[in-house]
């Protein structure tokens, strides 16, 4: 840090301040979405905001404030792992939510999973019937 701030310093400070406020607003948006959306799927849509764009903006503001180059790879690693792991948890929560019927069917425009789930249920029922017949007459 220089003792007297230059014009570049002021600009970088302003940009990082804007990034921080917008990143915090992403968290607020996620919370409002969690409170106001009607079912699990739409809440899940809102919940990923602070984790991807919000974290990106805040990490960028950390990098801008510290004014050293070597922190950027570490911040990049933190963000990359967030981007890699958020879809995994969202996929698992969405799958479990579909299977346990935590959704409003009337709010969906298409449901591409329904045919697959019905087919798997048919196969399971057929296997169960075959097993019962094996047990029964013998």
């Amino acid at each position, binding site marked *: *840090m220089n003792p007297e701030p230059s014009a570049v310093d002021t600009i970088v*400070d*302003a940009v*990082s*301040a804007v990034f*921080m*406020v917008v*990143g*915090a*607003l992403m*968290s*607020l948006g*996620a*919370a*409002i979405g*969690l*409170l106001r959306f009607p*079912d*699990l799927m739409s*809440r*899940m849509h809102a*919940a990923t905001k*602070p*984790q991807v764009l*919000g*974290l990106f903006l*805040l*990490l960028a*503001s*950390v990098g*801008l*404030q*510290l004014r050293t180059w070597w*922190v950027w790879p*570490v*911040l990049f*690693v*933190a*963000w990359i*792992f*967030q981007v890699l*792991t*958020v879809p*995994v*948890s969202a996929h*698992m*929560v969405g*799958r*479990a*939510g579909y*299977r*346990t*019927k*935590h*959704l*409003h*069917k009337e709010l969906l425009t298409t449901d591409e999973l329904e045919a697959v789930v019905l087919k798997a249920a048919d196969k399971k029922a057929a296997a169960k019937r075959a097993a019962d017949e094996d047990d029964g007459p013998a």
Partner: protein
Amino acid sequence: MMEIVLTITAVILSLAAAGAIVRIAIGPSLLDRVLASDVLLAIIGAALCIDMAVNRHLNNLMLLVALSIIGFIGSVTVARFVADRREQPNES
């Protein structure tokens, strides 16, 4: 200027955390609660980031990387073992 930004973001993040905690308390199903606790974890990560940026230190950086690597395990585990115990579907 950083003090003003710190105050604004502290108010915003407190409101967001309160919203997530309300959803954890009322949220009708287990998966809603897991999702809200995931959001609460992200809000705590955001607070750690803002602390680092305003005070210009890097003490929380490794904590943040570790959070982003292993933070998803909890919700994946709960989603793997969740079961439907409701009488009526679609009550949420």
